[in-house]
């Protein structure tokens, strides 16, 4: 232990060097961008090496942060001078940043390694690694930023990178459309974030989070923000917080902007893993956790009509329940996982809303591992089954793909919240406890509990359909285990998915304590609040049991056979399968509105403005005729004579244009002499 302590002391990363964590993947991206196509080994190697180095640096940063968990280590610097004062950016190192950095770099590293195998046959894999590195760099930038502006810049870079990666196979129309959809949908939320940021800068004059008492997350600024009210009696901090939350809604795929997330499955599977586990969706949750003091500033105010966090809690609850419901009826392996991500993110938002941001981050960390595991497992399945993603056409993969099956099952159990051994159980439990303890409303708690049942149910369905029974298609029949570059990351993630939960069990909530900046851990017995835990265990058992009863026992015989649920309630199932019609709804409302506006603008342009211009043109024509008449008859005579004489003079002067350089030089020399002489004469007088 002594050696470990010494080692940890050795491994410190001063905060002013924090940028290295993000800069290394960026450098790798730059090298990848310059590498020719055939240098794929180089690009992959550089990307992985940069990620590994970043991981080591993140570990050092974690050691630094844990040495003084309560402190927010910052390094601020002036970016440029606006005239009113310098615009300052900075790096921030606290346990939140450090834990997130370690998670992102570790999961990212494993995903990169997996990608080497998965993208082996792709001709553009150097570009792929370049984009992935940009993605990782941008996400790390979000994490280490100590300024909302810097965070926003990296945030947008994340968006850009996700756009590039979702549309990586841009020759597929679906992928191109999905990329656009993701970009535009998240942009809607980012508009809110941008407005919130501007408002914040307008009210406080700074965008730094922590700045020796002057930052926006410190008491002085928060006090000022809560003191003012705006439209509808809202506190300014509430309004800003809600606007910032808009960005999180877009990025984290919360209701009602969740529609892009399932479509984003069109990208390569490692991208999905990266988006859904480590980087993009985590950014929204991280953002809310980062600005938590701002969001929570209005909690003490009794007179405001609504608290920002209440909105967060309800949005999260709705998303959690809705995502879980839709996931039940999906047939694409990746889409099931995508909606489960939506649902789990809803959980995290729920936790944030009910006041336990540490539980949200805990769930974020564990979720990152098991969701990356599930996605990579799905990728392994897809890779083995020749890009067959429909679970109805898979089946029976348990035999040929033992490693994948085992790790996928671990991921499934972690996601379902199988008690005690798996990390998902502990983090979900923390969230449910927080929801239980919330005195705002009990609806979020019920939504969460319902989602627990559904989660266990659809995950059981997924595993049963994919891995058990007999292969239901040619491709699934020929499946074989993936190469070690793909299975080793799976194993690594599986280990993480199991062990990570023990960092934050109620008996010894080390992670929570460190995140809150406490150096001592106050655990309590598991039996305290054991009722809720028992309830959730029962619910998980119920979900798995139902799944087992419906799918496991009566396995689908052919790919075309109807789903048992579909047979039972065709209407509900169809509605869920159609994702509750959100896309259609948006097409019918927002899309049609925009079409109508466009038609209106077109009509205005065509008829009103054009008519006016045509009228003006007629007027101009008429004036022209009149002026021509006057011109030709009255004025031209004199001008003709004048221009004739001008042309004559021009001809005369053009003789000086000999094209001979010497002549020009001579004239310059003589001109110079004359000039000097004139000046001297003038000076004499």
């Amino acid at each position: 232990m002594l050696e470990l302590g010494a080692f940890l002391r050795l491994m410190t990363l001063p905060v002013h060097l924090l940028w290295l964590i993000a800069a290394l993947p960026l450098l790798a991206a730059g090298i990848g961008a310059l590498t020719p196509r055939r240098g794929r080994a180089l690009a992959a190697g550089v990307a992985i090496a940069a990620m590994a180095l970043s991981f080591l640096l993140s570990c050092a940063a974690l050691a630094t942060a844990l040495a003084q968990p309560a402190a927010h280590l910052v390094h601020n610097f002036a970016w440029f001078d606006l005239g009113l004062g310098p615009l300052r950016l900075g790096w921030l190192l606290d346990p939140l940043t450090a834990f997130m950095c370690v998670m992102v770099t570790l999961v990212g590293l494993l995903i990169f390694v997996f990608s080497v195998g998965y993208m082996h046959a792709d001709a553009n894999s150097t570009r792929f690694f370049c984009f992935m590195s940009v993605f990782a760099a941008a996400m790390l930038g979000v994490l280490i930023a100590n300024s909302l502006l810097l965070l926003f810049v990296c945030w947008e870079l994340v968006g850009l990178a996700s756009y590039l990666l979702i549309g990586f196979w841009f020759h597929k129309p679906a992928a191109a459309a999905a990329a656009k959809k993701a970009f535009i949908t998240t942009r809607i939320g980012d508009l809110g974030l941008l407005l919130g940021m501007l408002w914040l800068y307008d009210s406080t004059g700074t965008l730094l989070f922590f700045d020796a008492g002057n930052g926006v997350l410190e008491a002085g600024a928060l006090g000022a923000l809560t003191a003012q009210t705006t439209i509808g009696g809202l506190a300014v901090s509430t309004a800003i917080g809600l606007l910032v939350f808009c960005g999180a809604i877009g990025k984290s795929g919360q209701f009602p902007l969740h529609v892009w997330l399932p479509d984003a499955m069109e990208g390569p599977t490692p991208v999905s893993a990266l988006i859904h586990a480590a980087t993009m969706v985590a950014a929204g949750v991280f953002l809310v956790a980062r600005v938590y003091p701002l969001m929570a500033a209005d909690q003490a105010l009794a007179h405001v009509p609504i608290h920002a966090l209440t909105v967060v809690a309800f949005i999260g609850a709705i998303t959690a329940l809705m995502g879980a419901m839709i996931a039940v009826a999906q047939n694409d392996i990746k889409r099931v996982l995508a909606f489960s991500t939506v649902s789990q993110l809803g959980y995290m938002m729920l936790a944030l809303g009910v006041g336990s941001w540490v539980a949200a981050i805990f769930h974020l960390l564990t979720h990152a591992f098991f969701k990356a595991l599930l996605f990579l497992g799905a990728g392994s399945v897809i890779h083995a089954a020749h890009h067959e993603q429909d679970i109805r056409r898979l089946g029976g993969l348990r035999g040929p793909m033992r490693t994948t099956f085992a790790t996928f099952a671990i991921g499934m159990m972690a996601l379902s919240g199988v008690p005690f051994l798996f990390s998902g159980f502990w983090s979900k439990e923390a969230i449910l406890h927080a929801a239980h303890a919330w005195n705002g409303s009990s609806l979020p708690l019920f939504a969460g509990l319902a989602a627990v049942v559904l989660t266990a149910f659809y995950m059981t369905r997924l595993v049963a359909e994919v891995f058990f029974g007999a292969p239901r298609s040619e491709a699934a029949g020929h499946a074989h285990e993936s190469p070690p570059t793909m299975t080793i990351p799976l194993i690594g993630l599986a280990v993480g998915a199991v062990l990570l939960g023990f960092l934050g069990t109620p008996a010894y909530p080390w992670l929570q304590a460190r995140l809150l900046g406490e150096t001592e851990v106050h655990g309590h017995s598991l039996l305290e609040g054991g009722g809720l835990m028992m309830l959730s265990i029962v619910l998980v058992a119920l979900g798995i049991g139902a799944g087992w009863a419906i799918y496991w026992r009566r396995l689908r015989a052919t790919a075309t056979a109807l789903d048992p649920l579909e047979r039972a309630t065709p209407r509900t199932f169809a509605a869920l399968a159609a994702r509750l019609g959100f896309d259609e709804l948006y097409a019918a409302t927002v899309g049609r509105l925009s079409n109508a506006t466009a038609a209106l603008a077109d009509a205005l342009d065509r008829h009103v403005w054009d008519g006016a211009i045509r009228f003006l043109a007629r007027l101009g024509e008429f004036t022209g005729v009149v002026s021509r008449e006057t011109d030709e008859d009255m004025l031209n005579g004199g001008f003709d004579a004048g221009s004739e004489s001008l042309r004559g003079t021009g001809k005369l002067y053009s003789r000086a244009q000999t094209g001979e350089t010497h002549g020009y030089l001579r004239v310059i020399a003589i001109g110079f002499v004359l000039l000097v002489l004139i000046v001297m004469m003038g000076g004499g007088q």
Partner: protein
Amino acid sequence: MLQMTLALSASACRSLLAGASYLVELAKAWRPAASSDSLLERAPVMLRDAVTGFLPEPWRWFANSLIAIVAILAVFGLLFAYLTLAERKILGRIQNRPGPNRTGWFGLLQPFADGVKALTKEDIVPANADRVLHFLAPVALVALSLLGFAVIPFGRQLVPIELNAAVLYFFAAGAATELAVFMAGWASHNKYSLLAAMRALAQLISYELPLLLSFVPVVMLAGTLSTTEIVAAQGGWKWGFIPHWYVLTPWGFAGFAIFMVAALAESNRSPFDLPEAESELIAGHLTEYSGFKYALFFMAEYFGMCALSGMAVTLFLGGWQAPLPFLEFIPSYAWFAAKLLALLLGFIWIRATFPRLRMDQLTRLAWKFLVPLALINLGTAAFWSLTHDWAGPLQLARWGVAAVLVVGPFVIMGRTLSAGVAPRKYRYA
């Protein structure tokens, strides 16, 4: 008469007195001072002061410079003589033959025999030659290639001239020698000579660039253009046994390698001796030269080689610094000489080993390989200089990044360089 004797004796007394006081001064100088410099270290300077000490102050620096010039001429003249012999002997041994061994023991008198032969040969000037330039070329070449020696610190105390911009001066002087080569080629009125001169110009201009770029990192890190300060910056040892020579850093190693390749080309040495490729151009710009003028060209080539090696030693190999602390008792100029000789032997070894390049390969190597590498090396050095305060595990990262920055481009560009060259298909063979 008496007055005269008195005056004489008075002046004699005075001069005696002066002589005595001078001797006292000398004795003071001989006594080891508080400085750590050993007697041997200071011996050359004291010897010089003993000679010029008689002169009045205004003349002394002039005499000192004169002595420095004479000393350089003598030392490097002798070095030139024996370098030719060494080259012939070593080449002979590498090619499994004895080399010159008839004149004196082991052929030790061979250079002097060669010298006499060169002096007594007929001096031929072609009828149509540009006589003035034909005469001026070898003279200018020798004179210009000697200029570079002025700023090389040969030892702790032995710097002919201390200049603020010494490195710049050195390369300015080196750049001027190209003119002399051109003069020789043009003045001969011989198409081979002219072709060779054009080739030489192209080659010298091409390699000037990597040569200049390769030492810029040194200037950057040392923060000075003065050779003495650059050598001083390389003093000291890490952990008591690793010298702070620039060649022992990643960028320094790369810079040194680029510098030596470019120096090979700049001094027209094999494998870059295209301007005097016998198989293609007879003897290049030397075709129409004979006798003593030819010997002068030869001399200038060796002087240039020595000067560039001396500069390489100064810039990268720590100059006169001893490699290990306990070896400091050996005078500094001995260390300088040892390093210089090692580099010169390297030159000879390379000549015996490598085949001559083709003209397009030559320019390609310079422009597509050495120049980009040198530019990247500049970046590496900048990184090195910016991260000088990294300690602990970061130092490993610093080394790693710098090493990758050096090795990576070398490997990548080395591949593209040999892409069209290495497995050659001969269309007509």
